[in-house]
Structure formats: structure tokens, C-alpha cells
């Protein structure tokens, strides 16, 4: 009996320690929840600048709508409506993202008034020509990589976990990546992707974080290709959460004719 009590006391003592010691995978799960799943839904006007090595700028401007259909890591629906550049104005784009299977994607082409499904097996491909991939925008499956906490360090004045994520299969375009995850709000503050030869390849940074309806939100971010010098900066204007976006928005009907109230 005494032995059991000792054991129980030991377990009770160790418990808080265990709770604190997150695994790499748990850190990345919390990070995904904080970065890509906050709120029931989300809306932002997105201003994206593609900046070439010699400083030439191209602008992509869209409204981004997101609705969670399940909890963190679960199904989500995305809707995008383009304002700029002029040759894609009024074009809209819809994604049904599933946790462990290829996403469904549709595009509306206003020039011929046609809605079309598009093939989407490559999540590592560029999003609208930017340095961000589809996965950078809507998330990468946690299970696709193995995650290890390399170290804990300060980034600026924020305490961070530095997590090394290595793809389990060789199909990714990177060899591994390091992510600096804020210990308090779990947002990714910095990420460096290394190519398969181990050279730094792409660098992401969260440049401005703002709290919106209680959710810390990265409202300014940059992705730089360290090998070509090309970079993309993204600013969220008018970001907001829990607006009550209806399920019916994510349909062919509204892809053709997005309701004004959701895309302003």
C-alpha cells in the first residue's frame, strides 16, 4: 500500500512535467491550429506582392474566405475571388481541403462563364505564381513529415520551439525545414526550408502579428526564395473571424456570382 502511494505521488509530480514536454508533432499540431484553423471562419482581403530579384513588382489581390468544417487538422473550405491583376479580375477559385486525400479545386473563368474542376495533386506547386505553395496557404498534412524539437531559443523577444520537419516520402520539393514556433501563441514566426542537398532554399517570416477577436493573426508575412532572390510579401487587410459564412457560399452558384457582402 505504501509502495502504491509513493508511486502515485511520483506520477503526480511528473505529470505537469510531461504536460509541458510537448513532442515535435504536438508543437506542429498546435501551430497548425493557431495558424490555419482559428475561429469558425475567416475572411481577409489579401494583397500579395511578387518581387523579382531586380525589384520588379507584380500585384495579386484577392478576397480569401475560409470555413472550418471540422476541428484543427480537419476538413476546410476555401473561397478566393480575384481583383488583380486585370486579366484575372472576377475570377474565383474554390478548394475543399481534406486531411488525408487530395483536395477538390474548382475555378470560374468569367471570360467564357465556365466553372471547371482542376487537377490538384501537387500541393507543392506555386500559388498564383508566388513563392508560396498551396500548402503554405492552406497547410501541409502533419503526418507527411516527422517532427523533432531541435532546440528552444529566442527569436527577437519571443521564446520559440525550433522544430525540424523531415518529409517521410521523397515527393516534397524540400529536404527538411526548420520552424520557429512561438511558445505562447504557437504561431510560426520563421521557417527555413532546405533543399535536398541541405542548402537553404526558402525562408518564411511572420512580419506583423495582430490580435483579431482574440486570435493572434499573422497579418504580414514574407516568403523569400534564397536561391533565386525572388520574394513574395502578403498583407491581410480587413482580416476578421466568426462572421457566420454560410456553407452554401462554397458552391458553383456563388463561384459564378460571389455575393458582394463576402468579397468586398
Amino acid at each position, binding site marked *: 500500500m505504501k509502495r502504491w502511494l509513493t508511486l502515485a505521488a511520483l506520477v503526480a509530480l511528473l505529470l505537469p512535467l510531461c504536460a509541458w514536454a510537448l513532442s515535435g508533432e504536438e508543437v506542429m499540431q498546435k501551430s497548425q491550429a493557431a495558424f490555419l484553423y482559428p475561429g469558425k471562419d475567416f475572411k481577409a482581403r489579401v494583397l500579395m506582392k511578387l518581387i523579382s530579384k531586380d525589384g520588379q513588382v507584380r500585384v495579386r489581390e484577392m478576397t480569401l474566405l475560409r470555413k472550418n468544417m471540422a476541428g484543427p487538422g480537419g476538413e476546410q473550405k476555401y473561397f478566393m475571388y480575384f481583383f*488583380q491583376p486585370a486579366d484575372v479580375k472576377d475570377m474565383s477559385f474554390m478548394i475543399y481541403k481534406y486531411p488525408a486525400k487530395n483536395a477538390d479545386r474548382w475555378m470560374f473563368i468569367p471570360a467564357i462563364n465556365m466553372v471547371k474542376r482542376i*487537377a490538384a495533386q501537387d500541393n507543392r506547386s506555386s500559388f498564383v505564381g508566388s513563392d508560396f505553395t498551396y500548402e503554405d496557404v492552406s497547410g501541409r498534412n502533419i503526418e507527411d513529415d516527422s517532427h523533432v524539437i531541435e532546440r528552444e531559443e529566442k527569436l527577437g523577444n519571443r521564446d520559440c520551439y525550433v522544430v525540424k520537419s523531415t518529409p517521410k516520402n521523397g515527393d516534397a520539393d524540400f529536404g527538411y525545414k526548420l520552424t520557429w514556433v512561438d511558445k505562447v501563441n504557437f504561431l510560426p514566426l520563421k521557417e527555413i526550408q532546405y533543399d535536398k542537398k541541405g542548402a537553404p532554399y526558402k525562408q518564411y517570416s511572420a512580419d506583423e502579428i495582430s490580435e483579431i477577436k482574440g486570435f493572434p493573426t499573422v497579418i504580414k508575412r514574407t516568403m523569400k526564395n534564397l536561391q533565386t532572390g525572388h520574394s513574395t510579401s502578403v498583407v491581410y487587410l480587413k482580416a476578421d473571424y466568426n462572421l457566420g459564412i454560410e456553407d452554401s457560399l462554397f458552391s458553383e452558384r456563388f463561384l459564378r456570382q460571389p455575393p458582394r457582402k463576402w468579397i468586398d
Partner: protein
Amino acid sequence: MRTAQTGARAVALAASLLAAAPAAADLSVSGFLQQNTAVNTAGANPDGRDYKWQEERAQLKLEATGGAWRGYFKGDGYYDNLDRNGGGDVREAYVDYTGSAFDLQVGRQVITWGLGDLVFVNDVFPMDYEALFVGRPLEYLKRGVDAVKLGAYSKLANFELVLEPKFRESRIPDANRFHLYDPMPTVSNRETVKPSQGDVGLRIYRDIAGYDAALYLYRGFQRTPSMRPDSLTAPTKITYFYPQLSTYGASLSGQVGVGVLSLEAAYYDSRQDRSGTDFAVPNSQTRLLVAYQLQPWEDFTLNLQYYEERMQDYGAYLASLPPGFPVEKRWNPTVGLRATQFYRHQTLRVSLYASYDTSNDDRFINPELRYSFTDRVWGAVGVNIFGGKPWGQFGQLVHDDNLYVQVRYEF
């Protein structure tokens, strides 16, 4: 000149409509300036010119929204440097109302149905084939219809009903610019009779287990004309007309394996000649499309397409065909592809469209290079290459190969 007047009137009408819109309405204005030229590469036009197209064009797009109402106008003014001179073209002009479970759109609008890439199974709405063959931008492939479109949305299914009070035909290439096959070239007295009635179409669609499913019904007319001579032995006059047509079709598309599979079929009921014994009216037929789209690597998309047309009453067709007319095969299987690769952060696009009809050698190849110089200026250069038998859809255009250039400034 008449088109210019119609265009001007439409612009004035749209302007007054927009002016009358509630003050709270939110108005957006955009448009473009464009130059488009196509030069012959395989010989002169029938009219002796070396150009298929040489045109400056300006487009104005106006959109006004107020509550559930929206007004939309898209109109062009152009100057054709060959033989058509200046004019106006109302591309789209409509008002729409969006309710919770239904919407209504009234006016000139572009309607596109079906899944084919430059093959049309259930897309029974008017096309502009001339635009396709001279290398005009994609949007000019479709012609608007003056129609009332009613959409209704429910858990069971969604419905799109299109009522077109006055029939509008597809535009076929101009005989002054294209070498079109003509079985009776000596008959110069020709007239065109357009249907006095309109037409109606219904599309019913919904999701079925992750696949997009649709049914299509149409009752109206063929959009391209048929020709009837007043006599087979000594013709003095040819009448072009648009035979009655009904179509019944279905489509399904969704992810299969790594790509998107599209299936589409339709039965073309040639109502004017169900027995197939009138040689001037197209035989009833079935159309079938199977397409598979995949993305093997970043910024590269490949669409493979199989399309077929099959005549319903082939025996009757053969028996009624006058001597001297080309004999078509019963079954026309066509294979096609479109390959698209982007470079330079998706500002440079290299694409290839090709189709080949295995029954009669009919073929069409269109490689194109398109570059966005800035966010406002883009240009494209491409070639249209045709081949096949002298009476085939593309074969007759064998002397009409052309190289085209499009440059557009958008504002």
C-alpha cells in the same frame, strides 16, 4: 454601320440604366484596349488579302450593384482594317437579382454548358468559330444570347432554366476570308432563313458523392446552318436554314486517381428529320466525351480528350445522299490534348492544343505563347494549323493556316 448604331444605342441604354441605379449602388468600371492581327501562312484569302484579321478594339465593362440587384454591361467598339470598318458589339448586358433560393438574370449573357475543351457535347449555345480560327482571345469563342435565365437552388438539386425568345446563331467563318467547302459553287443566289421562334434549355445539377453531376435538356435549333438547293439537278438558289434540334445529355466529373475525370454524353434528336431521309438536315446523333486532366509537375497541366460523334440512321443517310456529295463516316472518333506549362512565376504561358479525327484525318493544331509584360499589358502569339479532307470541319481550311498576335492593355 447598323451594328455601330446598335452598339451606340446599347451604350446609351446601359449608361441611362446605370445612372438610374440607386445612389447607394456601387459602380465599377474596367476594360481594355487591344490589337489583334492574323496573317496568312498558307496562301491568300479567297478575296486576295493576306490577313485573316487586323483589328483594334476597346472594351468597356460596367458593373453596378445595389442590394440584391446587379447591372452588368460589357461592350466593345472596334475598327476592322480589312473590310468591315468600324462597329460596336454588345458582348453582355443584363440585370440580375439574387434571392436566397433562386436568382434571375435578364438580358444578353454568355452561357457555357458541359466539360469539353473546344468540343461541344451539351454546350448548345452560340459560338463564334471565326474567332477561334483567326486566333482571337478565348472570350470571343462564345456569343451571348438574349435570354432570361432562372436559377433555383435546393438540397435535392439545382436548376438553371434558359429561355431565349429569339434564336441567335453561331458565327461561321466569312467566305471572303476562309476557303469554305461548297458543293455547289456556281449557285450565287443564296438566302438565309432564321427561325422565328426561340429556344429553351434546362440544366439540373448537384453533387453526387464528391462528383459534379448534371443533366441537360435543350429544345431549339442547330446553331450552324444547313443548306438546301431548290433543285439537285439544276440548282438556281440555295437556302440556308437552321434545322430543329432537341438534345438530352448528362455529365459527371470528379477526382479519379491523380487527376480529374470528365464524362459527358448527349443524344441529338434531329426533330426536322427523325427518319434521317432528308440529306439537307443533319442525322440524329450521339456525342460522347471522356477527358482526363492531370498535373504531372509544377505549373504543368495536361488534358487528354476523347470525343466521338455517331450518326443514328446511317443507312437512311447513305440512301438519301445526292451523288457528288462527300460521304461522311458513321462514327467520328477524335482524340485531342491540351498541354499548358507556365514559367516565370506564371507570367509566361506556353500551350498546345491539338485534335485529330481518326475517321477522316481532320486536324487542328494551335500552339501559343502568352506573356504578361506587366500586370496591365499582355501579349500572345500563336499559329492555327488545319488539315484533313477538303470537306472536313478543319480540312476545308487547309489554305487558311495563320499566325496571330494579340496585345492587350487592361485598365
